């Protein structure tokens, strides 16, 4: 089988798995609704209670699971290619934490109540700051260590500021919501959140997807890529704004969900051959798969407990991260 055929097969399989998990996500929930009855109520044009649950609670949850997963997978693949760093990921380099901070400021100052668009915009601004700081600190050669260290500093700072903002809030519940912003959850999101975040996510996807050819050229190194006619300033603009827009919007409505952008590109890289352009679409689908599966699991494993998504992704992601570090150490030795 040629590499292209194998790539197409992989995409087809991933797309099918995503579709399957999307439907499965619609049939899982705390309320006992028979799967077929629920799915038919989704399309029935009446105002039954089951239809209300399906359309206003489960559908937005499944849509957001798919879109946010795709965002995290895609941005992870794009960042790893752009920074030429296997450990780059929105969670690890502090983009998610900074987007959380932006969203927290928008919500708890009451700004988002006055102007709903302030929520994704503030999250985007937070994410943008993080990407820029990490890019600046990493320097031209983007050494893995400096990227990660800058990321640790940015995410620690953003996390602390988020806690501070929530502790200062006069609302007694705000302090408990630190958990949501640090670990992420899709519980009881609504269509309002979908409409708020989806345009920014799609905008970000388009920018990141257009990076494909440039990322392929970048595997040969900065100078070679530039000599091949890749406009590095344009690449930087697309990568930075694309990541900030998509991850910012995703975080604004679901909190910071870690490790998805790290695991997925690594698992899929051997399957697509070492071509970053092919990894983009595959990682988007892979991210959607992982997040939809995680969101189904939190509802099945601990119903009624509102387990946070970040807990599950960290259980899988942290050991994976350690394995990556070990492998990197062996290569250096």
């Amino acid at each position, binding site marked *: 089988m040629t590499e292209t055929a194998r790539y197409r097969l992989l995409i087809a399989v991933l797309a099918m798995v995503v579709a399957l998990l999307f439907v499965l996500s619609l049939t899982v*929930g*705390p*309320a006992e*609704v028979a799967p077929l009855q629920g799915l038919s109520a989704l399309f029935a044009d009446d*105002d*039954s*209670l*089951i239809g*209300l*649950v399906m359309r*206003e*609670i*489960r559908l937005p949850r499944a849509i957001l699971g798919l879109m946010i997963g795709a965002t995290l997978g895609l941005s992870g693949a794009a960042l790893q290619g752009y920074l030429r760093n296997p450990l780059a990921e929105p969670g690890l380099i502090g983009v998610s934490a900074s987007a959380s901070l932006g969203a927290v400021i928008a*919500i*708890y*100052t*009451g700004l*988002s*109540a006055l102007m709903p668009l302030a929520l994704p915009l503030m999250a985007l601004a937070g994410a943008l700051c993080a990407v820029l700081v990490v890019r600046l600190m990493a320097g031209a050669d983007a050494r893995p260590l400096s990227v990660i260290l800058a990321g640790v500093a940015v995410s620690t700072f953003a996390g602390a500021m988020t806690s501070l903002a929530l502790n200062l*809030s*006069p*609302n*007694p*519940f*705000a302090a*408990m*919501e630190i958990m*949501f912003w640090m670990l992420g959850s899709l519980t*009881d999101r*609504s*269509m*309002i959140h979908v409409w708020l975040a989806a345009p920014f996510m799609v905008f970000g996807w388009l920018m990141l997807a257009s990076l494909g050819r440039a990322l392929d050229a970048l595997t040969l190194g900065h100078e070679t890529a530039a000599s091949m006619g890749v406009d590095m300033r344009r690449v930087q603009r697309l990568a930075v704004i694309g990541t900030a827009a998509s991850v910012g919007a995703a975080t604004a409505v679901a909190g910071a969900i870690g490790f998805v952008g790290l695991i997925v590109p690594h698992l899929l890289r051997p399957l697509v051959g070492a071509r970053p352009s092919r990894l983009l679409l595959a990682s988007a689908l892979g991210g959607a798969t992982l997040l939809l599966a995680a969101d189904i699991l939190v509802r099945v494993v601990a119903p*009624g*407990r*509102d387990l946070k998504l970040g807990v599950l992704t960290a259980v899988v992601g942290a050991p994976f991260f350690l394995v990556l570090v070990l492998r990197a150490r062996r290569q250096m030795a």
Partner: protein
Amino acid sequence: MISGWCRRFLVAGLLWAASPAGISAAETPRRVVSMNVCTDQMAMLLADKGQLYSVSYLAADASTSALADDAKRYVLNHGLAEEIFLMKPDLVIAGTYTTRTTVDLLKRLGFVVEEFAPEVSIAEVRTNLRRMGKILGRQQRADALVAAMDAEIARLQAMNLSEVELALYYANGFTFGSGTLVADIVGIAGLENLAERLGISGTGKLSLEALVLARPDLIAVDASPDRGPALARQTFDHPAFRAISAGHRSVQLDSRYTICGGPFTLIAAGILQQAAMTLGGVKPDMGKR
């Protein structure tokens, strides 16, 4: 150089010298400090003029305390040992769950500390009121308050309500099932508690999905806007929640009436009963689908 135990001994001596001399349980306390929002309110209701010196800062917060205005007449404390120590109280009243380290320290320093567990039923409110009355030497006042409460309970229970099912839906989807003060109040108001039908005991989670499907006749929420924005309040803006709570079907139940037990707790029962009776007029055309 003074060795560790010796220094500790000296410090303890100094502290002892500074603490009030006439600590004796038999006498009526003259300078009482309360450190818990619930004991604060009971003490404010019962204490003699000048007997209560300080209450906690939460007692003056209108979102947690039903007697916030009264609390402004007292010195406010934050439950810190140093602060209480300098007030030189002859009696400290605390809750069994809050400010534990302070309570332990104060006891070690020789202060008389009376602790009250939070009430989980109206019966316990009666018991605690009487106990507080005894401690403060105000039994008569306590008996009068309990009698007034019993009269109000009898009045509430005499109301004949058609069957109304109530869902208590608080921030983050919390609800109160059997064995809680709020559930007891719902019973006194003559309403059915959805949480109990769903088998939830104590404080539990009620998912939005389950709430929508159960379609209660009435939903009690605390959505007061004066606490500042938080995600917890976003639930009340969820389209699914709005769809089932439209019209008269939701009632604002301020937490300050239900956080602590006291005569004011019955105000909550009155609010629920009033809302259920308003509902009566529109009930026939909103049967369960």
